């Protein structure tokens, strides 16, 4: 007589949208509209498709650009705006639609009005961190009879930012520890960092060849929950480049020198660590006179 006490699975998808390349995509026409419109519409449709899967499913959408990050859904405004249904659309989906359109538009417009010409990297890492925080909160608030299956889907089209490296790494390992799967859908560019993140957390990484079919890619690869993914055939994992960059020349190295004190990585040997100023004393005194001899000879 075995007793199964099943807990209801609640699947939470937090979509992190990188809005930095919005302008780039807006300039590219696509079927009478612009590529940006297509991307954003696809993302909304994907979010709703996730909500459509089951009544317990939850959705969060966070967007970021180089200035700020913003929760689009559930919107943090508090006051609910009136929205109009498109014919036949489920009420709840219409609300998501309207919230995202409004929030995302505002975010991008704010960036424009700032009129800051200096181009900087997107705050993707920060937005992902917010997603993790939100997941953590939902997990805590969830009733005990429910079980949360959280994942993060990053949709981005901008290059890796070296400045956010640490944030990214912290996010990846936090996600791994919290059993949050990180998926990533890249447009236009590839991201070595996010490849690592997906690999670490067991998520899918996909670099899509064309933006027009974004929704189908999303539905195909990222809609199935991680538990269902084992049953289906998905694109094989990309080979992830885990090489570290040396601190001196920012070259990716396979084998390098590591400071035994501060763990800095160097591609070339030097007698002093330039990060922590530790001198590497070689405990072979015989070498020192040999060197000095040589030097003397050279001189």
């Amino acid at each position, binding site marked *: 007589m075995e007793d199964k006490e099943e807990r209801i699975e609640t699947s939470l998808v937090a979509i992190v949208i990188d809005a930095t390349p919005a302008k780039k995509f807006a300039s590219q026409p696509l079927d009478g509209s612009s590529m940006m419109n297509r991307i954003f519409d696809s993302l909304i449709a994907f979010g709703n498709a996730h909500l459509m899967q089951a009544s317990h499913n939850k959705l969060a959408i966070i967007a970021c650009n180089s200035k700020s990050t913003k929760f689009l859904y559930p919107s943090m405004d508090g006051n609910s705006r009136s929205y109009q249904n498109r*014919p036949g659309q*489920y009420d*709840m989906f219409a609300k998501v639609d309207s919230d995202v359109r409004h929030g995302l538009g505002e975010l991008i417009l704010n960036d424009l009005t700032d009129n800051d010409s200096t181009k900087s990297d997107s705050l993707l890492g920060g937005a992902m961190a917010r997603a993790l925080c939100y997941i953590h909160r939902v997990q805590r608030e969830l009733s005990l009879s429910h079980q949360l299956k959280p994942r993060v889907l990053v949709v981005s089209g901008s290059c890796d930012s070296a400045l956010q490296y640490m944030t990214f790494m912290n996010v990846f390992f936090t996600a791994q520890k919290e059993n949050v799967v990180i998926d990533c859908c890249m447009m236009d560019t590839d991201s070595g960092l996010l490849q690592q993140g997906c690999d670490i957390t067991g998520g899918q990484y996909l670099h899509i060849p064309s933006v027009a079919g974004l929704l189908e890619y999303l539905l195909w690869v990222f809609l199935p929950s991680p538990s269902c993914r084992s049953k289906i055939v998905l694109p094989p994992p990309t080979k992830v480049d885990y090489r570290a960059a040396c601190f001196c020349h920012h070259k990716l190295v396979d084998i390098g020198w590591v400071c035994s004190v501060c763990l800095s990585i160097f591609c070339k040997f030097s007698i002093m660590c330039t990060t922590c100023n530790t001198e590497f004393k070689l405990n072979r005194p015989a070498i020192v006179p040999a060197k000095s001899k040589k030097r003397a000879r050279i001189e």
Partner: protein
Amino acid sequence: MSVQQRTLDCKDLHEYLKTLSATVLDRLYNHPATCLAVFRELPELSRLYIMRILFVDQAVPKAIMGSWVSPNSAKELEDIVKLLTELRLWQEVEMQGGLKGWLLNPTFRRNLKGALLGGGNEWSMKPPTDADPKARGIAILDEYAMGRWECVLHFMVGSHQHEVISSDALQILQHAGLMKKEPGENQLTITRDGFQFLLMDTSAQVWYFLLQYLDTATARGLDLIDCLGFLFQLSFSTLGQDYSTDSMSDGLQKFLQHLREFGLVYQRKRKDGRFYPTRLALDIASGPKKSMLNTMAATSLNQSSGYIVVETNYRVYAYTDSSLQVALIALFCELMYRFPNLVVGIITRESVRQALRSGITADQIVSFLRQHAHPECYKEPPVLPSTIADQIKLWAIERDRFVYKEGVLYNQFDSQADFEILKNYAQERGVLVWHTTHGRKMVVTKEGHEEVRKFWKRHSRNGSM
């Protein structure tokens, strides 16, 4: 007499839909809400299949679709194909070059897409143009819904301190076989099925009740498809939002009044022009499965959330003041003490046997205790001590040691040879229940009796000649 345990046959949405005819199904899929409800109840893999071909307006070859799953899930794929075909969600078509492919039901595709993105058929339920001056809060709606629903249950349990329910509801109860009128008695009494019904969780009760209602819908002059469509829309409506009745047909208006009586919708006045769905109506289609009702209610003020603590010493503590809940517990518990907000009972062999006799199954008792477990119990699983669950099941098995079969006894054979011939004949036919050479007795099933008797007559006539 067969005393085999019979559990209440509560179909889930798909099983119900499969009983409907193909034309009815096709018409049903004209409602986006129905499509959404049907879609949500599908297994995850089949949902994925639909999502993948949702935007593909042409048939997809079977071979390609078969390659989407990994080889060890091929069995699952078969089940999916069967289910989707049965529900008429897709159909097999011949493609160019003789390839067989699957094509998604166009109506279903259009309306599911519509629900997702817009652009499909309109939903008939719409918020009124003007705001309700006397808008109702969610708490009030919850209270109303539970009050109405419990009223029905109270009636069944027989605690008549509330208002008597309407004749329509009575009819449904009788139709569903939950209550019946004993011949010569005026009063309705609860049946075996009724007891089982009581122990189901609220959303399953509502679903079962509605299925029974829909069975009789056509008899009442209602359109089944309209009613189902409306019901599904209701289940996707927003709690606390009011909806207009303006565009509703007369039939639906009537249906609405029935729903109002059971607490699925709230309407202040019949002529108000607006109504509010309640929690009972939400997510109704997932009924027999575990619903979110319990857990959602747990966060609200609803009392029906977990209130039972069972200890390993068979004591049951129920933190409740509802006479209905007390009555439910009393179905299988011996009550010991009663306090203003607490009832203490004990599960005994006798009390459980009493419940089993009245038709409740052990599984129902166990799942009832589990579903209504106090939130504190969830903190340290198992929610219900396994000794209790096992013991209740053991007590149930205890009763199943006898199997009753009807039959006819043959005895007083004149010779051993006669006995052997008849016994062999009955055995060949597979109608022999029991026999003993000692005293030459045998029992034949009731169905086989006629045949055996004829054979015997033939045999004895031959023998005499």
